[in-house]
């Protein structure tokens, strides 16, 4: 789990980058080599996790604490007016590497980026259905958590295979991402 053979991000972790901005035992941040905008920073965990859901809680907390600071740093050092912090989680969301990473994108007026959306109008009924479904899953996740607080990442991925039904969608996600060259 520490490294993965054909992962471009694991390569960076192993070989280093001349544009490394941050490096500690768990996380590393570099300037993106194909930036969405000037000063685009990518922050990732040193262990190979494909999607955010696999990253252990503690590490998620650490990663975003670092992301927050990197965001402040880019924004101050480059004289920007804002930042976006984005995780593209899954191919459908535009995830390009099979290694979970946090994008920090400095923003300024007229930078030509449009990271925005047109709001949709849902009917009251549609909203209620979504509400019920999501709530139900959140409760399930809450229960799982209590029973597997201390379990390691590896154990979790094993469980996924065992419990097809519960983990169906994350599995689908993983498979589709692993197809990324």
């Amino acid at each position, binding site marked *: 789990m520490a490294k993965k053979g054909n992962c471009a991000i694991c390569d960076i972790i192993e070989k280093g980058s001349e544009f490394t901005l941050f490096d500690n035992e768990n996380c590393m941040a570099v300037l993106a080599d194909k930036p969405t905008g000037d000063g685009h920073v990518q922050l990732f965990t040193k262990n190979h996790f494909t999607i955010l859901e696999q990253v252990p809680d503690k590490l998620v907390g650490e990663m975003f604490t670092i992301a927050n600071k990197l965001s402040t740093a880019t924004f101050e050092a480059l004289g920007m007016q804002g930042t976006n912090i984005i995780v593209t989680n899954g191919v459908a969301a*535009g995830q390009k590497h099979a290694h979970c990473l946090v994008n920090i994108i400095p923003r300024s007026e007229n930078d030509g980026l449009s*990271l925005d959306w047109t709001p949709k109008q849902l009917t009251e009924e549609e909203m209620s259905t979504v509400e019920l479904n999501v709530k139900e899953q959140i409760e399930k996740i809450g229960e799982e958590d209590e029973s597997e607080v201390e379990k390691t990442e590896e154990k979790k991925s094993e469980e996924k295979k065992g419990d097809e039904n519960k983990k169906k969608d994350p599995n689908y996600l993983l498979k589709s991402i692993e197809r990324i060259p």
Partner: protein
Amino acid sequence: MAEQQEMTPEQIKELQEKVKNMSPEELKEFQKQQCIFCHIVSGKVQSKKIYEDDKVIGILDINPSNPGHILLLPKEHFQIMPLVPEDIISHLFIATKKLSQACLKALKCQGTTIFVANGMVAGQKAQHFMVHIIPRMEDDELSPLNLSEGKVTKKKQKELYNKLKPRVNHLFSVDTKEQFDEPEGETEEEKPRQARSKSKKQVVEAEFEEEEKDEESDEEDSRGVGSDDGEDSDEEESDGVDLDSITDLLGGGA
């Protein structure tokens, strides 16, 4: 959610004047009163709440980018992310991970976009810091969020890197040491940078304090970082804006 009444330009001006003269505590209280999301947290305004614990709540966005678009926000009022304490940041994003997982399962979607906007130019619309969790399907209409890959020259990267690296180093070393006055292996030119950050930190905490402090920090800054002086003088102008300008921009829309 547009429950607030329209104001005349005079009223806005009056309000801005009032805001200017407030102490940071008063200001925070005032912002809370004005903030629709604080009303949602307190239950004064109805919402489709799907998650709640002692620090954060998650609600469904009533104008979602996709069905199941969740807004996850700290219960306490923070305008922008840099003002949020670390423990709340961790807590918030651990909850984000769970909600993202719940979305994947509940909505049979194929991915999620975790989205944070800091500042109006980045698309921040509310004055209450929040995380967006957006369920994604292949070929939905949200492809701009997929982050296009651009090109950049080595030279430009190097330039950006040289600006960024000192600031990053600095921000993180402040964090690991209780006091950031310790000289510990620093070169001459790093000292003024530390001094600068001190005043900067005060600015962050005080949020709306007068401009002078910021100018002070700028002067120090130009001495500190000044490796390419010519360019820097231009840079400093915009640099001085940073956090304050964002809170200001957002404050203006109150």
